[in-house]
């Protein structure tokens, strides 16, 4: 009985902490504007939509990985997967939850676009260093 109680409490709090942690990762990117170039590539002009996320992630995979964003992308990817699950199950019955998941999915897509921007800059730096060398 006691382990079952601990398990339920832990999973509930895990969900709470995981969502807040992912939102703290995303929050920093929400303030950064996208360059014209990334806007053209991703098709995200000002506001992203959740549907953009898989496409932007595909573009991200085309760029050389930078070591410091790999873990963040995985965490936000897992968060996006969780949002998709909520959207296709519980959110069908609750309109307020549906709009919340849509907003969060869009934030994930914007985060991915900002990360793409950083990776492009990182790749350019690497190329410039190679040219200099």
């Amino acid at each position: 009985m006691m382990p079952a109680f601990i398990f339920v409490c832990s999973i509930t709090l895990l969900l709470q902490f995981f969502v807040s942690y992912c939102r703290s990762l995303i929050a920093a990117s929400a303030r950064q504007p996208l360059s014209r170039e990334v806007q053209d590539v991703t098709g995200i002009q000002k506001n992203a939509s959740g549907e953009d996320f898989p496409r932007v992630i595909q573009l991200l995979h085309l760029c050389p990985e930078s070591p410091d964003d790999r873990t963040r992308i995985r965490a936000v990817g897992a968060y996006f997967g969780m949002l998709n699950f909520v959207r296709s199950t519980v959110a069908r019955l609750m309109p307020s939850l549906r709009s919340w998941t849509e907003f969060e999915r869009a934030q994930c897509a914007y985060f991915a676009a900002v990360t793409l921007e950083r990776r492009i800059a990182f790749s350019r730096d690497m190329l410039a260093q190679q040219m200099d060398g």
Partner: protein
Amino acid sequence: MVCALKKGAFRRYLFLNVYMAASVLVSIGRYEVLSHSGFESSAYRYFYYYSDSVLTILLYFALTSLYAHVFGELKANRFVRLGAVILLAGTAVFSYAVVQQYNSRMLTHFVVELSQNLYFVGLVLTYLLWAAIMKMRETRAQLVQLVLALGVYFSLFAATYALRNLYPSQSSVFLSLLQMFGLVLPIAWAYAFWRLSMDERIAPARLAMVPR
């Protein structure tokens, strides 16, 4: 630890770095015992559980130091320290009461029980700290991320230990999961130290599951 040193946050978050240094030493020790005695040996098992208990206690004090950061301005550090010691003693007494039924290897059972209970106590305390951060509108992004990462870590461990107690026959599967989850804290803390400056601010109300 290296990230904290490079970014000048080593002394500021001393207990967190002491815990990280201890976990590196313990990992080296475990590897030594594992390579000499093997995975199934009692030497490895003893070393694993006893060192895990020491690490959990250190992590508990690291959590207490985060409380001191949040409540620092209220000059409540003495009360935080006192409360932490009393709670640790209470958890130890409770763990002893649970393992009293065992006639043999009581100390080993006690160490394992204490460790598991501390993960759950740590989880509850981290949640209370998170609630305090929201209530007091703490804005230091680095501190907020350190606390949230600790919350994810404690909840993963507490949930896995609970599952292991529910299904003891699958113990080895859960032990493997624990090894994997062990990576969460060093990665998340390294990111918080490396990428976030000490001046960076965040509105915690934006991070809540239910918008405030």
